[in-house]
């Protein structure tokens, strides 16, 4: 065996099932099985994982529909934990929660599906180009060679973790099968494709604490609630507030090297849409298809529930694999609430004592462990690389005090809260400035200053201040009417509207506006802030607020869509015209 984890043991003898309740199966006669070991159940050889052991009896979590499984059916230990095959051929493809390729699977995923499909695609051939030299001492994580043509980024074959030593044999340049042997390091074989336990984090040399932004192309995020590379962030909001749309926008436009999109218990049509869209869209950074930098893990809401629980780990494991090659990877998990529900469902079937709202007591530690796998690191091979996690939270009833939301808030660096009223008014992305936070904003402001934008922090602070003030005045205006407010405050109300509609709202369907560069975003914010200043100056020299409100702000509101995604100069030109108009008011 080439298993790197060393966790493989000789399988113990076959047991028999004694209880079946949906995905919960109990089996006896299993003295010697290990926690986390995979067993195969019944004639269909359904895979199931050991989650509890009592005497010779084991509680198993089944990853497939257990229909037809009987008491007394065989439970065959496999001797190893649930593993995935990590190698070339992940990018551009879709997998289920157990990391089995969906591309070669049948139209209807019936229970008769083979459990060993993880080995499918083994017939694929790849060109291996060696880069290390026989006789060298190689460390774990060091590059042995590359595989061209395996997606948008160069695929690097690395020495597996825990494998360092003298390189005694290396394959020559040429075609290899997925399971072929590429090198021998200190007497151990290294294969082109590595088998790795899905739940286990891949090791790194060290974690970094300095920050650099992940550019998302969404102004409300990049300008107000930025996310750092390697940070964990969550987006929360009731249904219909546009979570999935925002996540898809980030997946399309953020400047990461690799995207892992995990559809965890979500809609099938959405996954079809992602697959369609990403296959069609061009990646502005590489000129290739967006799909070529993307791996999709799809476990839709009607697929087996416990595979949904696993899909989150499968996704982050794939991201860590690319991180270890030296890339910035982003995992988008939609939705972590469905994952938490799978945990709850199973805990309840086991009869565990529930904590809040029926969720198991270890929900917080499970969520923390997941989000902590995000990070900017030095890899074993010495690369500076990162895994950024963007998790969606779907609070029942839009209630932000429910357990998954409140626990998630504690462990993420940024939280983007979507607001139903903004969504109703078709203000997308409906990220609300009041309920969102970005703990890395200060560090990222320093980064922006070093890059030459010293105004970044001040611009952000002013915008947040106007938005908060405009909200306060709007509720006041609802009582007394906007016309009763003093001129200065009416300008702030107008400024709030301009910020919301001209800067924060973004049209995902517009070619000019779907994404936005840092320069254009800064220019748009400058445009609005300059207009607000000019209006204040107008009020100060005696222009009535009514006259100011009568100014046609259409050019400001249309600016984002009128100029290209990086056209800061186009925005600046609009600014000059607007300032002239407002300056001319008497």
């Amino acid at each position, binding site marked *: 065996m080439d298993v790197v984890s060393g966790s493989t043991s000789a399988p113990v003898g076959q047991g028999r099932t004694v209880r*079946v309740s949906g995905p919960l199966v109990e089996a006896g006669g299993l003295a010697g099985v290990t926690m986390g070991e995979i067993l195969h159940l019944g004639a269909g050889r359904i895979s199931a994982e050991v989650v509890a052991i009592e005497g010779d009896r084991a509680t198993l979590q089944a990853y497939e529909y257990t229909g037809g499984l009987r008491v007394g059916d065989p439970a065959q230990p496999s001797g190893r934990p649930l593993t995935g095959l990590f190698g070339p051929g992940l990018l551009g493809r879709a997998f289920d929660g157990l990391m089995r390729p969906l591309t070669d699977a049948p*139209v209807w995923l019936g229970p008769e599906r083979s459990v060993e499909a993880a080995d499918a695609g083994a017939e694929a051939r790849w060109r291996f180009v060696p880069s290390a030299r026989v006789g060298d001492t190689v460390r774990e994580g060091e590059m042995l060679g590359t595989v061209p043509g395996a997606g948008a980024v160069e695929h690097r074959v690395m020495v597996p973790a825990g494998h360092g030593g003298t390189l005694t044999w290396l394959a020559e340049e040429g075609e290899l099968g997925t399971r072929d042997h590429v090198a021998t390091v200190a007497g151990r074989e290294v294969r082109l494709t590595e088998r790795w336990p899905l739940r286990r984090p891949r090791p790194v040399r060290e974690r970094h604490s300095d920050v650099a932004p992940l550019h998302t192309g969404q102004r409300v995020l990049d300008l107000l609630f930025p996310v750092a590379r390697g940070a964990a962030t969550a987006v929360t909001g*009731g249904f219909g507030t546009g979570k999935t749309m925002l996540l898809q926008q980030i997946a399309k436009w953020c400047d990461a090297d690799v995207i892992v999109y995990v559809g965890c218990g979500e809609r099938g049509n959405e996954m079809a849409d992602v*697959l369609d869209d990403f296959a069609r869209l061009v990646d502005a950074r590489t000129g290739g298809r967006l799909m070529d930098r993307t791996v999709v893990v799809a476990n839709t809401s*009607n697929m087996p529930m416990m595979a949904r629980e696993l899909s989150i780990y499968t996704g982050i494991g794939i991201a860590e694999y690319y991180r270890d090659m030296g890339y910035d990877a982003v995992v988008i998990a939609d939705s972590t609430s469905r994952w938490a529900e799978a945990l709850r*469902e199973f805990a309840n079937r086991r009869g565990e004592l529930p904590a809040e709202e029926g969720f198991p007591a270890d929900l917080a530690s499970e969520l923390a462990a997941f989000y902590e796998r995000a990070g900017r690191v030095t890899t074993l091979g010495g690369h500076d690389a990162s895994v950024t996690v963007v998790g969606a939270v779907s609070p029942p009833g839009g209630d932000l005090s429910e357990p998954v939301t409140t626990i998630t808030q504690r462990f993420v660096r940024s939280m983007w809260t979507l607001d139903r009223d903004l969504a109703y008014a078709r203000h997308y992305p409906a990220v609300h400035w009041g309920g969102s936070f970005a703990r890395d904003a200060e560090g990222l402001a320093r980064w922006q200053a070093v890059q030459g934008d010293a105004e970044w922090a001040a611009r952000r602070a002013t915008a947040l201040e106007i938005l908060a003030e405009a909200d306060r005045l709007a509720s006041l205006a609802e009582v007394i009417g906007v016309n009763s407010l003093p001129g200065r405050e009416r300008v702030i109300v107008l400024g709030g509207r301009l910020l919301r509609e001209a800067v924060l709202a973004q049209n995902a369907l517009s070619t000019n506006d779907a994404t936005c560069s840092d320069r254009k975003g800064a220019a748009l914010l400058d445009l609005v802030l300059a207009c607000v200043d000019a209006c204040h100056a107008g009020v100060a020299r005696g222009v009535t607020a009514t006259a100011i409100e009568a100014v046609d702000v*259409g050019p400001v509101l249309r600016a984002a869509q009128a100029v290209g995604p990086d056209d800061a100069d186009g925005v600046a030109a609009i600014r000059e015209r607007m300032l002239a108009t407002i300056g001319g008011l008497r």
Partner: protein
Amino acid sequence: MTAGSRATDTGTWTVTLAGTRVAHRDVRAMRGPLLVVGGAAGVGWDESADVVAADGVRHGLVLELDGDEATVQVFEGTAGIAPGAVDVRFAGQPLRIEVGPGWLGRVCNGRGAPLDGGPPITGGRLAPVTGSPLNPVEREAPHEPVVTGVSVIDALTTLVRGQKLPIFSVAGLPHLRLATQIAAHATCAGEQFRVVFAALGLTHADIAYVRDRLEERTATGELVLLLNAADDPAIERILTPRLALTVAEHLAFEEGADVLVVVSDMTNYAEAVREVSAARREIPARRGYPGYLYSDLASLYERCGRVRGRDGSVTVVPVLTMPAGDITHPVPDLTGYITEGQIVLSPELAARGVYPPVDTLGSLSRLMRHGAGPGRTRDDHLDVAAQVLAALARARQSAALAELVGASALGETDRRYLAYRDALERGLLQQGDDETRTLDDTLDRAWRALATLPRQELTMVPTDMLERRLPIDEEEAHG
């Protein structure tokens, strides 16, 4: 057909149970709809079973196996069963039904037994009622509109072929009127449009209304009616939508039809699920509903869609009443998380005499941007819809202000927004319950309402489109 089943008011059963079966008589417990039978070694999980009692054959599913005991959920309930006088026969396979075009034009009860005096339905093919998950990579993303003929839906929350779009209502609102209007008149560009209408726990008066409203489409063989009445067994409601979807999937993906499945009322369904969960003494999540309600509802709603390389589609319109009008209640909430949008009915609009009383701002069709606009409906559709909704959101603020300060104290712009809202409600929303409008008519009505606003307020529509589409006379009248 099972031996011993007969056409009584408990109905015939269209399931075929193959082979001879051992009778299990060792009933050890009964609890609500659950029956625990011993000596059941060799029975598989999720198998279907016949429960033969003195008064006829009932039908069940295996929910749990523990040692030699099997827990069976009985769709007709366990009332009247005495432990010593019942045979349980397991089928050796999951519940399957006959599928095929033979269902079209038929009226059946919630278990698929004919209510129209016709023969039992045979199709020559059997399909499991639970269906199988569709491989996500084999799904075709929905792209073409279903034209319901209802202006407010077609214009603002376009239904797309292969979508699931629920109607959220409140007891007393005309959701059944709207659902039957859609079921009776919806069409799409495909050649065969078919409808499966499943009634869950409706009163006999409502059932009579549904039969009457859908009579024409039933008579032309385009519609299947499955009727579970309020006094029919509650647990049967767990089965009825699965029958409807199994029939629909076959018509769509094997016969190539575009099938619309309307299910009303899903709140009754969820209560049946809760009843079983309570009988199993499971730990509840919210309001007594089990934690798996999301997955359970998804196993129904996710059966909509289209399949790559095949004609046909399944579009699902579930109807549900929100208890006490609460959209955060678990049933509408979980439904909203699964479906691709929602159509919300508003008591305020109904009180103002608007039919259909659709709360346009609370309603949303997530797939609209794929199914409407250039090449799908009309080039101006998406822009005009966005403008109508944005202006309505603004009009709502004006209305709130008017309530505080009085309409006479409003500024000119606010007054124009109020006029716009009235024009929209009268011109676009208001519609007869047997009136079917074309899409062109619908969109032109939207433009006429927008024309009541000052032109500089229409910032969401490109200038050239305004020139082309905005009705001239109103624009001049308002300067």
